[in-house]
């Protein structure tokens, strides 16, 4: 809440006696609150518009057909899908980008029609869901980019999973460490300290990144492990992608991680990362989709799709890639809403996937999208 301090002259009459008796705080707070409303209209007006992001998410709730909540990571593409879908069909879908954890909680409580998460729900979370079994539907692919600030290095650095793990563990502390140099022959690396920047807020981006480190580094697995918030051994915390990239952009010698869409739109340098087959791969829409293709063998018809695709097989697969999921109850309590939801998701696996790349999200492999669209028919309680 914002308080603007303004005191009118009339407040001052007899002020010394009043103020020296007890209620200094109380009295002042009262006079402040009087002017708050006025101040909000004038000087504080700016803050109103800055919150339009969250205000937009709850707008026009009266005419909304479906409500969802969850991950912030896919928020831009979901917003685009929902608005495109509303234009084409008139079905209005409202999405609150409140974070995956809150999305899972709201779905479990049944306060939303669908949830969204960057990490799959745990078995305990699935058991706690009040509306019965929850199905995971991958909606689109995202990736995490390793970005850094080395002004004199002009070609993209190449890093391996072990090196990234040891940098974020604080075991590699200099940019000219022989192990980094070995991967980057021909690049002059400065004898500078490495400063690690990570996310301070719990986030799906952190989940994907630490999931990857857990997969490629035994020391990381034994240490911080994976999660939306972990206990970072070294470094600074920045709030949001903009907090991390702000620190990295300004400070020479820093390394951090941000989501692909953010890195591309802000033209951040990104490292090429060696994947499971030993190829150094740049993060692109194609290399991320390739990661999902590499993981197709785990995604048979009876899969529950709670799979991680970090460090996936395939020569062109970018290794720090991940699904983001829509969470849907298998038994829809409200057939009308269920039908709308299934129809939307069928659209999402068709036309929706084609528009993903325009916002720097990678579309699912087409075979997988078809398979998932077929899986929609296993949702119960929906009129056929």
């Amino acid at each position, binding site marked *: 809440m*914002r308080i603007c301090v303004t005191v009118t002259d009339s407040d*001052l009459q007899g002020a*010394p*006696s009043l*103020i020296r008796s007890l209620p200094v705080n109380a009295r002042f707070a009262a006079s402040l609150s009087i002017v708050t409303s006025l101040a909000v209209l004038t*000087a504080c007006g700016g803050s109103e518009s800055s919150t339009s992001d969250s205000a937009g998410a709850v707008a026009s709730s009266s005419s909304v057909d479906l409500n969802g909540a969850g991950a912030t990571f896919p928020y831009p593409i979901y917003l685009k899908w929902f608005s495109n879908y509303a234009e084409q069909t008139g079905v209005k879908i409202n999405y609150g980008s*409140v974070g995956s954890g809150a999305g899972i909680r709201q779905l479990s409580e049944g306060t939303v029609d669908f949830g969204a998460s960057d*990490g799959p729900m745990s078995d305990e979370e699935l058991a706690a869901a009040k509306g019965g079994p929850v199905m995971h539907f991958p909606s689109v692919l995202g990736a995490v980019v390793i970005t850094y600030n080395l002004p004199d290095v002009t070609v993209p650095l190449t890093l391996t999973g072990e090196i990234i793990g040891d940098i974020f563990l604080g075991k590699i502390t200099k940019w000219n460490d022989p192990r980094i140099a070995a991967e980057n022959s021909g690049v002059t690396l400065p004898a500078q300290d490495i400063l690690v920047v990570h996310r301070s807020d719990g986030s799906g981006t952190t989940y994907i990144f630490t999931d990857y480190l857990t997969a490629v580094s035994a020391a990381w697995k034994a240490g911080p*492990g994976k999660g939306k*918030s972990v206990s970072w051994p070294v470094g600074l915390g920045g709030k949001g992608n903009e907090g991390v990239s702000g620190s990295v952009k300004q400070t020479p010698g820093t390394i951090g991680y941000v989501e692909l869409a953010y890195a591309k739109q802000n033209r951040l340098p990104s490292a090429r990362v060696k994947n499971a087959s030993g190829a150094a791969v740049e993060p692109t829409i194609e290399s991320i989709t390739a990661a999902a293709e590499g993981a197709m063998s785990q995604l048979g018809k009876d899969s529950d799709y709670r799979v991680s695709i970090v460090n996936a097989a395939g020569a062109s697969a970018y290794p720090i890639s991940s699904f983001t999921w829509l969470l849907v109850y298998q038994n829809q309590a409200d057939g009308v809403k269920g039908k709308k939801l299934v129809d939307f998701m069928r659209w999402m696996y068709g036309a929706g996937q084609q528009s993903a790349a325009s916002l720097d999200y990678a579309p699912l492999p087409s075979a997988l999208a078809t398979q998932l669209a077929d899986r929609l028919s296993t949702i119960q309680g929906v009129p056929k």
Partner: protein
Amino acid sequence: MEGVAAPAVSGPSDAAGIEGSSTGDRIYRVVTFLCAVSIPLLLGFIALEIIIGAWPALSKFGFSFLTGSTWDVGAGEFGAAPMIYGTVVSSVLALLLATPFALGVAIFLSEFAPPWLRQPVAFLVDLLAAIPSVVYGLWGIFVLLPILRESVMPFLATTLGLGATPLFSGPAYGNSMLAAAIILAIMVLPYISAVSREVLMAVPRAQREAALALGATRWEMIRDAVVPYARSGIIGGIILGLGRALGETMAVTMLIGNRAELSASLFAPGYTLASVIANEFAEASTEFHTAALMACGAVLLGVTLLVNMLARWLVGRVGRDGR
């Protein structure tokens, strides 16, 4: 002092005198009574809700929640000592930085400034309080941090040779306890200066004239007659600032570095209770994690109440000993 105490005592008895004189008064009295009672009730309700939410964490960790310095979500280990330390240190440091400056502004505006300058400057200082927290945070990231990193911190550490002391040691990242304290100082300055200014301007003219008549210089008049007269009001302003500083979230989160580690150095990143809640609440997935964050909220509430009670006691004491 007697002249001051009198109205405070006569207030309630005046009210008693007109009590029951008409139905309108009675209704008015009931309505205002309900308003007044609703505030403590609301506060109690909030405190109760927070404590119920925090109970799983509080009952498991007990006192070690306050003293433990490990905050590891993955391992389910939660100790809030670094956050408590960061909250208190950043706020106190902010007050130390802001108070002299705010008093300088207030004294200039009330004693020296010509009338044509007084209103605009007062307005501009007050306007500082109208800037949204997130804007302070962004300004901090793009303006304050580079200055700290490239000029202020190297200057303190090497030029002044303070780098050998634990307070100013370590690498200069920018994001630090110092950065948080500076942004907080700027944010609480208008609160302290506005209250101080109004209190100083309300010091009776006779007080000033008497001091001058006794041969005091202008500086002596301000130091010995005006400021002591307004002292408890000024402390009230400082408490208001402290309250803001303890609870401030957004700007601090963007600048403090968010590391749950106890460090004596002001150059080192820190964490505050409000920041950890803002950072982790939305994505808290385990029930225990949520409870630990609620417990942080309870601790923040406790720290704020404690500090305010202490300050209230201080105001009372200064008021009595003042003259």
